[in-house]
């Protein structure tokens, strides 16, 4: 408590470095105007509906189906991204080969490429007559305009999160640990499983959660390739847009709050994980 009072005193204290009130004042004003008040308005609007109406909207089969499609495809994409992401991080961090720097720079492409561009190019690629889609078409596998297409888009969007979470932690793994494992007769695979993997596990989980969170909210890259058939390939963000275009503000609000809730749970999970890592290993995950 005394610390808190001490803290508050600093608000009135004169500092050597100027601009405290101006910078903090502007920061809080801008944050409130752009982020806090609009988000609060959303939550207030949902709260104004009452629990029974919220439940009624959330339990509509179409809403349940959309939330499930979003969650399941994101989960499967994030699960797929873990081994691929760790592999890419490993190759980029451990091996020296021609084009490594180019490959490293390319990992961030999904962060830099506008989602609408990713959306139309992925659906062109994975359509039945597309470069990749045509390879699967003879086997009767349709990728674009099915839930499989959503999964492809979410793999694209989520991969950098895993790579970029794992890469710095992998670089810090003490080589002496691996040497010790080798002198004790462990194979490389065993060393990876028993020595390296436990160290990078928190980073893997962080990347997984970030990819999952991003996947659930993703819109632009998905809607072009999804097909958008209600109950089959309609994602939750698209249902919000649909509800809005039908002037069903209550429906849109409730789905939005449900999605916010899911992201905050994931965010809380990531923060707990980082705290745990800090305690256990003494470094940031």
């Amino acid at each position, binding site marked *: 408590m005394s610390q808190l009072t001490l803290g508050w005193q600093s608000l009135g204290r004169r500092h050597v*470095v100027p601009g405290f009130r101006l*910078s903090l004042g502007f920061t809080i004003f801008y944050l409130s105007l752009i982020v806090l008040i609009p988000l609060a308005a959303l939550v207030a609007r949902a709260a104004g509906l009452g629990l029974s109406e919220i439940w009624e909207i959330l339990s509509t089969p179409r809403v349940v189906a959309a939330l499930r499609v979003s969650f399941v495809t994101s989960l499967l994409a994030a699960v797929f991204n873990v081994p691929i992401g760790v592999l890419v991080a490993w190759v980029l961090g451990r091996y020296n080969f021609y084009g490594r720097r180019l*490959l490293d720079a390319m990992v*961030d492409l999904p962060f830099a490429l506008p*989602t609408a561009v990713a959306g*139309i190019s992925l659906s062109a690629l994975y359509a039945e007559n*597309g470069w990749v889609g045509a390879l699967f078409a003879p086997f009767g596998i349709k990728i674009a305009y099915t839930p499989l297409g959503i999964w492809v888009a979410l793999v694209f969007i989520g991969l950098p999160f895993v790579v970029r979470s794992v890469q710095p932690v992998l670089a810090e793994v003490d080589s002496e640990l691996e040497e010790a494992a080798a002198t004790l007769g462990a194979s490389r695979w065993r060393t990876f499983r028993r020595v390296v993997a436990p160290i990078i596990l928190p980073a893997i989980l962080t990347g997984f959660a970030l990819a999952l969170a991003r996947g659930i909210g993703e819109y632009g890259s998905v809607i072009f390739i999804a097909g958008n058939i209600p109950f089959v390939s309609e994602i939750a963000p698209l249902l919000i847009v649909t509800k809005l275009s039908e002037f069903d503000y209550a429906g849109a609000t409730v789905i939005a709050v449900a999605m916010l809730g899911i992201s905050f749970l994931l965010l809380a999970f990531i923060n707990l994980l980082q705290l745990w890592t800090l305690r256990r290993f003494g470094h940031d995950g």
Partner: protein
Amino acid sequence: MTVEQPPTAQKFRSPTTEAPVVRLLLIGVAVFCMGLFFVLPMAVVFVEAFARGVWPYLANFVDPEVVASIQLTLLVAAITVPLNALFGISAAWAIAKFSFPGKTLLVTLIDLPFSVSPVVAGLIYVLLYGVNGVFGPWLVAHGIGIIFAVPGIVLATIFVTFPFVARELIPLMQEQGVGDEEAALSLGASGLSTFLHTTLPNIRWALLYGVLLCNARAMGEFGAVSVVSGHLRGLTTTMPLQIEMSYNEYNFVGAFATATLLGALALVTLAIKTLLETRYGDEIAGARRV
């Protein structure tokens, strides 16, 4: 980490790396995956754009709607990026140079927009400023349009690009502390002069890095803008929305032609980003964070 081996130890392999075959295999799988997921989508944009030759490609950029969408995208970025840069500097200054209660909470709140779906980001402004929104009746009475107009697009873009500059500057300025500024001030420099001549040179590359990422997202944002724009042709369509409209009208060459501009923007952004990381990596603290 390659260690020179004496000639007699040619066959000796470091115990902390894999057999050459395994290494090649792993590199092969990584390159294959990256090619499949990242190179092909990039390549297909350019191939589809020129599918009918150069003239249809160029004709797309004479279309007044496309020209208007390019202008609007540039306008939105020109408003959004400086505002978020100013906010980022201001927030980093307050957080890094002073101690006050609630700082951790403030840092968390600044990152909040990254965990909100773009569609939800658009929705919150519709609920506030839309016709049926909190301020809707007042705005209608005074003839001010925010939703389905340019101000709404700007607001939604500011929201989704909100943390970019701040999150690059905060860790860096925290690392740098207040030593340099105190030295400048004690030598008689004014507050403004201290900022311009001491702080700004210290943070310039990180600032540029943040602005670069902020700009790329501002020009490419789709979901949030799509909710507030109303898709009014030539008036409230940014380039990503123009791509969507061309695509939905089966004008694939047009859609991919407009997309080449944004694709090129992404490639240039990645190139400058990589350059900044290689050359000024030490001066960009947040460079390796997701």
